[in-house]
């Protein structure tokens, strides 16, 4: 392979890059709970993140994270579905309190315990529906080592700016397989500079301007009282049954992620001139899709590739791209076309073809065949 004087070629797994990127971005605490296939992340975090505490269970994990976050620290954890299922009420709490945190969700084969050591992409519908009320937690998805680096840092930045939990989605094969990689390709990651409320007036933790993003002030500060609340609340953070101000706040929570999506729209669009076919894939299936598209082009087919990295909320750009093509193949490692369903609902447009599988990765030749069939 070509090599220049600056190259630093190593063999590594993606977990290492994720944790290093989060540390550089400013992750201050990692709350650990052992679960396959997220264990490498836990191990690396133990060596790298300033505060690393082992939690006794997944509920405690997110509660501790929420407390740390409310106190001004930026916390991270990593889990897989069985753990995430237990976290969801607390994720709702952190969402309602508007507390930044990053949860790395490493997908494995379900339902339930499923197969701990087998990859999958089966948690998308769960993530879309996890908040009672239908509001959306931003979900980023890693498709290669560059994403492990950049997207991880962005996840922490966006969590901080949006005052929201952010899910960094990946899967077993994506972050446990070891690959050669040139470290010199990694860019600098600047630590997040956190803004806090500096006003003289009493602090209202849920008072937002047109950005819909309220300012932050940690618990325990000497200047202003801070009230945080997981129940329906007003701008001050006081419980309300259903006052207009409190319901407006709940509506703001629904809108703030989408309203600010331009801040965090990440995708890769490899467009081929005159192509009428589009392949969409993310996470580990993006690797197969890249190979499939390369092969098709070598063999004379015209085809474009879209790799969404901001999975939720869905950026409008995806629809703009999709509507340019006569046929679109969405490949995902599940048996019920989860992201396609999120994009288009149960009744898919005629131009959309879906493909999936269970218990193994989708192969490039399968994507090629499906794209050619369409």
């Amino acid at each position, binding site marked *: *392979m070509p090599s220049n004087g600056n190259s630093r*070629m*190593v*063999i590594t797994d993606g977990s*290492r*890059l994720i944790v*290093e990127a989060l*540390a550089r971005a400013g992750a201050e*605490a990692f709350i650990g709970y052992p679960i*396959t296939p997220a264990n490498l992340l836990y191990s690396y975090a133990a*060596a*790298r*993140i*300033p*505060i*690393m505490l082992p939690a*006794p269970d997944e*509920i*405690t994990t997110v*509660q*501790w994270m*929420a*407390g*740390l*976050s*409310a*106190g*001004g*620290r930026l916390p991270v954890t990593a889990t897989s579905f069985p753990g995430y299922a237990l976290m969801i009420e*607390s994720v*709702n*709490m952190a969402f309602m*309190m508007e507390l930044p945190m990053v949860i790395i969700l490493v997908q494995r084969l379900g339902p339930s315990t499923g197969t701990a*050591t087998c990859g999958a992409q089966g948690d998308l519908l769960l993530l879309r529906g996890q908040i009672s009320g239908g509001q959306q937690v931003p979900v980023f998805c890693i498709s*290669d080592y560059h994403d492990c680096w950049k997207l991880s840092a962005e996840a922490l930045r966006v969590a901080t700016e949006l005052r929201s939990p952010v899910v960094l989605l990946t899967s077993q094969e994506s972050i446990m*397989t*070891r690959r*050669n990689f040139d*470290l010199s390709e990694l860019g600098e990651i600047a630590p997040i500079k956190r803004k806090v409320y500096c006003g003289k007036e009493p602090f209202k933790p849920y008072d937002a301007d047109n950005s819909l993003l309220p300012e932050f002030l*940690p*618990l*325990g*500060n000497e200047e202003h*009282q801070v*009230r*945080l*609340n*997981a129940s329906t*609340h007003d701008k001050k*953070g*006081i*419980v309300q049954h259903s006052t207009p101000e409190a319901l407006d706040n709940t509506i703001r929570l629904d809108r703030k992620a989408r309203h600010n999506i331009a801040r965090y729209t990440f995708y890769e669009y490899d467009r081929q001139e005159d192509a009428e076919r589009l392949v969409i894939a993310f996470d580990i299936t*993006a*690797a*197969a899709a*890249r*190979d499939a598209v390369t092969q098709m082009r070598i063999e004379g087919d015209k085809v474009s590739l879209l790799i969404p990295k901001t999975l939720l909320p869905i950026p409008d750009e995806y629809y703009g791209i999709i509507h340019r093509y006569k046929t679109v193949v969405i490949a995902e490692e599940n048996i019920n076309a989860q992201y396609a369903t999120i994009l288009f609902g149960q009744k898919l447009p005629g131009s959309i073809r879906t493909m999936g599988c269970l218990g193994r*990765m989708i*192969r*490039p030749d399968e994507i090629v065949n499906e794209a050619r069939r369409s």
Partner: protein
Amino acid sequence: MSSPILNAKTLPFCKGCGHDLIAKNVAKGIEKAGFAPLDIVLVTDIGCHGMIDGSFNTHTVHGIHGRSVALGAGVSLALAGSHKKVIAFIGDGGATIGLQHIIEAARMNIDMTIVIHNNMLYGMTGGQTSGLTPTGFRTTTARDGNPFAAHDICALTHIAGAAFSSRILGLGDYSDRLAEALLVKGCSVVEIMELCPSYGVKLNPKRKLSEIMESMGRREGAWRNDRPGFLYTGSPSSSDLTGKLPVVLMKHKGDLRSRYSIIITGSAGEGVQVAGSVLSRAALSSGYHVTQKGIYPVTVGVGFSTTEINIAPFKINYNGIQNPDAILVTSRDGLRHNLKRINRMKSGLLFIDSSLEMPETGADVTVRDFRAAGVRIAAFYSILSLVSATGIITFDAISEAITGLGLDDQVPFRRLVQMLNN
């Protein structure tokens, strides 16, 4: 009562509710302990007690049912080293739901004060039995009296290691005892016994708190563990996880023109994964791109161990292996794990230990006594056989990879080469 801590004369509780007294005693205790309002973070959760937030001039956090102690522990960890104090309010129902959090805070001796509002039933949801309901106490879900014994939360937290556990009969002015708890550097637990006027009193007429406590064999008191509060002292052992990775120099040349996929399979503990790492590193130093995936049961110390390696002169995206070019089998576990793949091979190479039965395959087969070198280096022997037969990687590259991974003491490279040549 209005105070620097409380901002309301009337608190949002039913007439005669013990929660009212608890809030006022806590507020008074905070003052007596010398804390200013913004020195305190009051964490509440679901239950009638959680309606108090708005009445406190402190920082307040209102969380979810049973989790105020875990949430408060997180706040305490964030504010460690400051003079701030976290107070977690929780009911007996919440303490039942979140018992683990209370035990954990006690075990870790996290610097916080936990105030358990024990009115012996779930009040807000209609008077149901909790884990702290005494035997014989009537609730809406145990009309004839609770058949179970109540947790002794003070005993549990004391034995778990809380610096301070105390039980208070929740009548009158007990603010001094709350101030004492608030001044503890570590986990202090205060269980306050009270009666819910809406359910507890109505369902258990004529019963008095003191008599109920006596029937439980419980008494007021304070129990101490002389141990320091938790202070996080850990520090990262690494300042750069990527900096630890050995940089591999392209010192060798390989002449592969296409992707070459290898499966090494054997038994756990027999060096399969490490041999895969050697082969991967040697491939990289030969100018190839490489992927390596380990496959093994969750019981990593027993059963099969397989590693899948792709080598190519171009970037490898998809790392699955449908048609392996070579399978190296060093034990029966490995043969069983990959038998179907071996059966499906229509071409390629199979290297198999001579102790194993010969599977059906379309591959060219090489039989060798890999285990003669010792079971822990059988996999290394097999990769030398592969590179010798194919020339895809040089022996020098393998030798340097063994050295580079610090395996010289474990892998007798020269002896293996000699065995191969014999």
